[in-house]
């Protein structure tokens, strides 16, 4: 088991390293004359050169990268080119907002998907067909359209929730819940649609397995067999889809944060992207990649727990 965890951990660190390296090289080499863009087209060549040397952009790319990497390992991701703020501080202060959205949506999606998928897989018939139809629609409609719909219905017309703004959970739980409910719902719908399809399919397969009949023949109730045995066996593929969905949610959160004016990662990403503030963009890439690697690690461990063959091989 330790070797399994260690191996996954190492491959996660390697993935993080590769992603950040590729991102760094593309971001810093792909942008042409960065200093010129910052100081503007009307500035003199001397001003451009000065800016470049201030930001260290006149050094060879490899040296810049090495410098960035060694600082990054100590937690220093540099400063924004435009407001001079520490990137690490800017990213980490917004991380909690984005994570509470994405984790909330993932948890809700997981719970709702399991319940709905079991319902569809066990009942079949019209229940199953209805679930599949709604699933296709939920999958097809872009998440931000759903978010727009929710805002105009529940916030602007019915006024049940505030349309914009954010209250930290540490300030008031009620206030926090009021500001994140709609965004989480908007994010989770597409996720639920995809995960339900997967769990439903693997449940139907798992229900056909011989051991289901044998366990029932030993006196276990159908529900006990479904929730303890069938669901655990169907869990592997479902977790894999949930991991993919989680990554998608990190992207979806950018737009949803914009719609609900939440101070999350998405907000600084959009701002930094518009300005071409490369250190901040790089910081967002590092944070996102780190989250993805951690989530994949957790999913791998969960897979090992679910399926002894993975763990023991």
């Amino acid at each position: 088991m330790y070797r399994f965890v260690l191996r996954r951990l190492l491959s996660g660190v390697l993935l993080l390293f590769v992603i950040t390296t590729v991102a760094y090289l593309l971001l810093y080499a792909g942008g042409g004359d960065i200093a010129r863009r910052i100081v503007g087209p009307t500035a003199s060549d001397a001003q451009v050169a000065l800016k470049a040397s201030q930001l260290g952009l006149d050094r060879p790319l490899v040296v810049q990268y090495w410098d960035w990497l060694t600082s990054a390992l100590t937690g220093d991701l540099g400063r924004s080119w435009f407001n001079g703020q520490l990137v690490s501080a800017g990213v980490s202060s917004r991380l909690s907002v984005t994570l509470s959205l994405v984790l909330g949506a993932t948890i809700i999606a997981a719970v709702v998907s399991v319940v709905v998928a079991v319902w569809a897989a066990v009942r079949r018939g019209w229940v199953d067909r209805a679930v599949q139809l709604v699933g296709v629609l939920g999958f097809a409609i872009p998440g931000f359209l759903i978010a727009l719909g929710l805002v105009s219905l529940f916030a602007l017309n019915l006024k049940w929730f505030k349309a914009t703004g954010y209250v930290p959970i540490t300030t008031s739980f009620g206030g926090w819940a009021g500001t994140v409910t709609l965004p989480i719902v908007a994010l989770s719908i597409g996720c639920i649609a995809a995960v339900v399809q997967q769990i439903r399919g693997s449940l139907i397969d798992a229900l056909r397995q011989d051991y289901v009949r044998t366990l029932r023949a030993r006196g276990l109730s159908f529900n006990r067999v479904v929730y303890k045995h069938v669901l655990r066996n169907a869990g592997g593929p479902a977790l894999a889809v949930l991991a993919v969905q989680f990554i998608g949610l990190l992207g979806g959160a950018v737009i949803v944060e914009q719609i609900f004016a939440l101070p999350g990662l998405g907000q600084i990403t959009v701002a930094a992207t518009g300005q071409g503030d490369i250190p901040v963009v790089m910081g967002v890439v590092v944070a996102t990649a780190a989250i993805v690697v951690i989530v994949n690690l957790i999913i791998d461990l969960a897979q090992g727990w679910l399926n002894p063959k993975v763990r023991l091989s």
Partner: protein
Amino acid sequence: MIETPLAVPAGAAKVSLFRRLLTHPTGVVSMVLLVLVALASVLAPLLATHDPNTASVQQVLAKAGSGHILGADSAGRDVLSRLLFAGQFSLAGALLALAVALVLGVTAGLAAGYYGGWFDSASSWLTGLMMALPGMVVLLAARAVVGPSMWLSMMIFGVLLSPAFFRLVYASVTAVRNELYVDAARVSGLSDVRIIGRHILTVVRAPAIIQSAMVLGIAIAIQAGLEFLGLGDRNIPTWGSMLNDGFINIFKSPTLVLWPALVIGLVCIALTLLANAMRDELERSRGPVKKSRKAAAAEAAADAEGAADKRGAAAVVHADEPSEDDGEILLEVTDLGVAYDQPDGSTTHVVNHVNLTVRRGEVHGLVGESGSGKSQTAFSILRLLPQGGRITGGSIFFEGKDLAQLSEKEMTQVRGKRIAYIPQEPMSNLDSAFTVGSQLMEPMRVCLGISKAQARKRALALLARVGIPNPERTFDAYPHQISGGMAQRVLIAGAVSCEPDLLIADEPTTALDVTVQAEVLNLLRELQDELNMGVILVTHNFGVVADLCDRVTVMQTGRVVETGPVRSIFNHAQHPYTRQLLGAILEDTAPRGQYTLKELKGVTS
């Protein structure tokens, strides 16, 4: 972001997918809608009443109607005209992303799948890397470098989407690469390019078209998302930038956001539904083969049934020998019928008018070829018929209660404790996610209400009893770590763990090695003796019957054809089917070699 491609139906692309789609209602509706949107966009210069970019201060946020059919936006531009022209850019952007994804994904997939080697592992690794970050974040990062060009963004997104095609093509090519006809083509000297073109591209064409519809939808959505964030090119009208404008002015003019949202939503839904419809049609094209085979089997069964009726359906009943008539009657099945509901609404009867009596302490063989209804009879006694199956008539009396009438809850009380079951295939009947020990203990704790420690002690004792050499080790093992013979012993231990009165063994030795078969049969006999159980032994093997059973019931096409004490059946078989089965076992000495033969001779002489 994209589901794993469906398995490739070989040769399915031969019949025109398009023509079959015309018979699919959602497919037709989706296609018509998409064609209309595409036409409206292409013909925008003719249809539009205004120039899409002409701003007018007087017309800012003008209401619908007065000169502007759908009103005007925050710069006073005509919404309908912009919607039409925006279609050109939004669709072209999505098509660009699709084209890039197709070219990259299909080329890399073909090369990786066909040539394998380092290219294979490198591109698989690369696709994994590309799927590791959310597409939106990559696009935003890229936007920071390349600027607000929609075309560049869509090309980058095309690269990000290419794994969707790579995986599809790669899976198909590796499946096809070693097919005989590809080998034959190679041997006959065709060049790689021609083989790929002729044999491999035809296989991936249909699934790739389906994937394309999905990818187009995703590209339209993400492009609209980018523009909605205000990061797009402000000089060209797109649905996303209209959404942005509408959202900013949502308080002043609530309908402004509605039109682009409606168009984006409808196009995305239509593309997804179209993809689903195409998938349905592809799967259906493979369907008829399966269906006709099933139909043929059903017809054959019906014919056989008819023949049985002509021969006279009444079963041959051999009288009991006085000495064997001791045990109380444990189970009495009368006039049992089992049927399956078919998707087309009809029902297929698989068991008809079956009578079966099992006494305490008796091993009752239920014999017949596969499809004779013997397993269906066994499952209906347990009330564990596969999905779609139901008991259509008759009664199953067990200890004064008709099992056919019990509720599911009452039946759960009977299973395991009073009636137990040993399956045919040992490995698939253990849950691979739990240890052998926990699977043994769980039902005991439920049925007997004992503590975990007691259950553990009992489980270890049972494992020792069924002849497992190192019970502790097997207890802690997972099913895939033990042999088939061991697994069958575990299942037997589980079946007798709550000391049932009736044991139903469904071909308990069929899946085992010949040497293990004899041991398992001996074990069954010993346990039956010890616990004084009634046993129903479902088998197709008269050797096993001769070895173990007191009485036999022979089934054919869902009916009982002959029943009686084993000695009487072996000596005076009357029904031709029984004789045929007996004849088969005398010719073929498979189950227990010479031992069986000798014993059979002892019985028959």
